[in-house]
């Protein structure tokens, strides 16, 4: 069901992966661990592939991570090779995803042993560096990312102080004493604020009496006719280099907090455009371009869970939501996760692999249906999503104040999106803050209130150095990929 919902969410332009996962999160509250994780992982993986469907058929990426697929996918569609392009997107997604899941399983188990040797000071530093990375690597403007992260920290600090139990930043509102719950926060930020944006678009069009552009359906009808060519095994294997580039670059991007699946896709596309033997044709409607972008964005899925499972740091919004679901199940992600909840960890690993097989199966069977889904009118989608969001927020704790919080956060999300602030750092910082605060308090006590210990050790200097290198390196690589894709857009 997760994969089905996920591909549907991905195939519908205007709905992000986070929207689908946010709407499913309240439901996991009433499920056992296995089905809850299966649902979220299914949505996560399904939506990433689903985004490529409308990118190829309508030149409208269903999710931002599928934007790089448009350059080659839509050109192939116009040449009458849409079926081939869609199949390449599916197979490259599943290939990149499966290989990166194997990397995740191997690396997470290895790094978990190392993470156990970290004391509270080192753990605090790792989290602090992750906060800086998330802020600086999300979005175009470094400071916007950092401010967004800071707002997330501020929102997380609302409520009672964990040690003295004194209410902080509650503005004398008693219902804020327990803090801001995660579900209204996630639903407000990713589902309702997004729907308000779409609503705004409809209202604007209505005011200007603009007709909503109708898509040419004849091209989709011919997509699955007998005459349309299928992807051959030779063509699939012929793109092995690009899929390998996508898997490698995507996996590395996934492991780094803040880069995300869009970053993974564009970086992979940029690298493939420079190193592929068929680089001249990438951007002109080549299978290699689709292979690189799609394996690149799906390859971030598994590795984004590595920092979550090893250090308790969610590297992306998807990982943050999976982390929240784990917390609902009583297994809060932390460095001791492998020791305390081995069954959950290994179920998660198995589910990652199974979800790929389901993604392949559902994608193959339903691709005909999904390619028409981009036609679903927004005037149906918006009230439907808002209804699900309100019910989903309320049913978790049957608390009407949660709905108020959700609507206020939706307004905040709308304003942040309007001013082009990335919202991923906000939610990741929101989830990370209690952990940062706790480790900071322990670290300070164990160092006998000597703050210098935090920044004097060799490890802290090494971490700082690594963060600076990563920020500079990835920003440069991103700029290079943007230049390549920018040139393609101009063309």
């Amino acid at each position, binding site marked *: 069901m997760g994969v089905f919902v996920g591909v549907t969410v991905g195939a519908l332009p205007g709905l992000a992966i986070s929207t689908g996962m946010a709407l499913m999160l309240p439901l996991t509250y009433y499920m056992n661990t296995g089905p809850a994780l299966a649902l979220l992982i299914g949505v996560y993986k399904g939506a990433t592939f689903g985004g490529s469907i409308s990118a190829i058929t309508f030149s409208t990426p269903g999710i931002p991570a599928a934007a790089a697929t448009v350059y080659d996918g839509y050109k192939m569609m116009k040449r009458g090779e849409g079926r081939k392009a869609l199949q390449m997107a599916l197979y490259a997604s599943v290939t990149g995803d499966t290989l990166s899941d194997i990397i995740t399983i191997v690396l997470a188990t290895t790094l978990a042993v190392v993470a156990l040797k970290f004391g509270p000071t080192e753990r605090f530093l790792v989290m602090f560096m992750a906060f800086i990375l998330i802020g600086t690597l999300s979005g175009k403007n470094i400071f916007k990312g950092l*401010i967004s992260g800071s707002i997330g920290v*501020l929102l997380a600090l609302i409520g009672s102080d964990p040690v003295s139990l004194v209410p*902080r930043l509650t503005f004398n509102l008693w219902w804020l004493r327990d803090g801001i719950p995660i579900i209204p926060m996630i639903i407000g930020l990713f589902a309702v604020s997004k729907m308000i944006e779409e609503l705004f678009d409809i209202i604007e069009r209505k005011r200007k009496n603009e007709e909503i552009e109708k898509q040419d359906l004849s091209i989709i009808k011919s997509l699955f006719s007998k005459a349309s060519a299928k992807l051959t095994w030779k063509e699939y294997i012929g793109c092995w280099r690009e899929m390998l580039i996508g898997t490698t670059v995507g996996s590395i991007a996934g492991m780094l907090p803040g880069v995300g699946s869009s970053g993974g896709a564009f970086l992979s596309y940029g690298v493939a455009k420079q190193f592929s033997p068929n680089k001249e044709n990438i951007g002109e409607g080549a299978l290699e371009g689709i292979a690189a972008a799609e394996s690149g964005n799906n390859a971030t899925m598994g590795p984004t869970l590595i920092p979550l499972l090893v250090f308790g740091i969610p590297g992306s919004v998807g990982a943050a939501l999976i982390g929240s679901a784990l917390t609902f199940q009583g297994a809060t992600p932390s460095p001791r996760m492998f020791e305390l909840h081995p069954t959950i960890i290994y179920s998660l690993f198995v589910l990652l692999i199974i979800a790929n097989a389901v993604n392949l199966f559902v994608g193959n069977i339903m691709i005909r249906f999904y390619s028409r889904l981009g036609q679903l009118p927004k005037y*149906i989608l918006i009230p439907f999503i808002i209804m699900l969001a309100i019910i989903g927020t309320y*049913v978790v704790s049957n608390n009407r104040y949660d709905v108020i919080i959700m609507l206020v956060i939706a307004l905040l999300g709308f304003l942040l999106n309007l001013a082009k602030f990335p919202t991923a750092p906000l939610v990741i910082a929101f989830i990370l803050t209690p952990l940062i605060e706790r480790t900071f308090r322990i670290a*300070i006590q164990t160092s006998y209130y000597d703050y210098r210990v935090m920044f004097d050790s060799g490890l802290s200097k090494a971490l700082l150095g690594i963060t600076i290198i990563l920020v500079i390196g990835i920003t440069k690589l991103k700029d290079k990929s943007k230049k390549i894709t920018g040139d393609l857009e101009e063309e």
Partner: protein
Amino acid sequence: MGSKIFSNFKFTNKVISIILLSIFLILLIYTYNMDWSQKTARDGITAGFFPKAILILSMIFCIGMAVNTYSNEVPESLEEFDFKNLIYVVISLFICWGYFLLLLELGFFISSFLFLSLSIYFLGPGSWKVSLITTLIIIVFVYTFFSLIQVPSNIF
């Protein structure tokens, strides 16, 4: 003259950062003046320590945003944005709240029927037939979905 200044006014990143800086400053002053921020926990850290630290950090980031290379850029989405339209955003949030209150009073079926059919009618092409059929399909789908998961709530 005043209207000329106003018509030339642009929401550049610098302006946004100054607005945010002011909000963070007000919050910092509020935090400093509150009794709770001085109360010390048994680990020696005051309740106001973390809020103050992050507010100061946020203000530094705002200054960074005001002076960096993108400071005079207007975010793409704000270029043609008419701020009078913000009223629609607030109205739509109040409609959502209204739907929620109806949900508590009238239950899932009646309130959702009203909310969906009216929203689809006014946002869509204005056909009652489309709006009613779609509403019924959605209501049956959502009810079945939540029933399958056995969500315990007083609204169903």
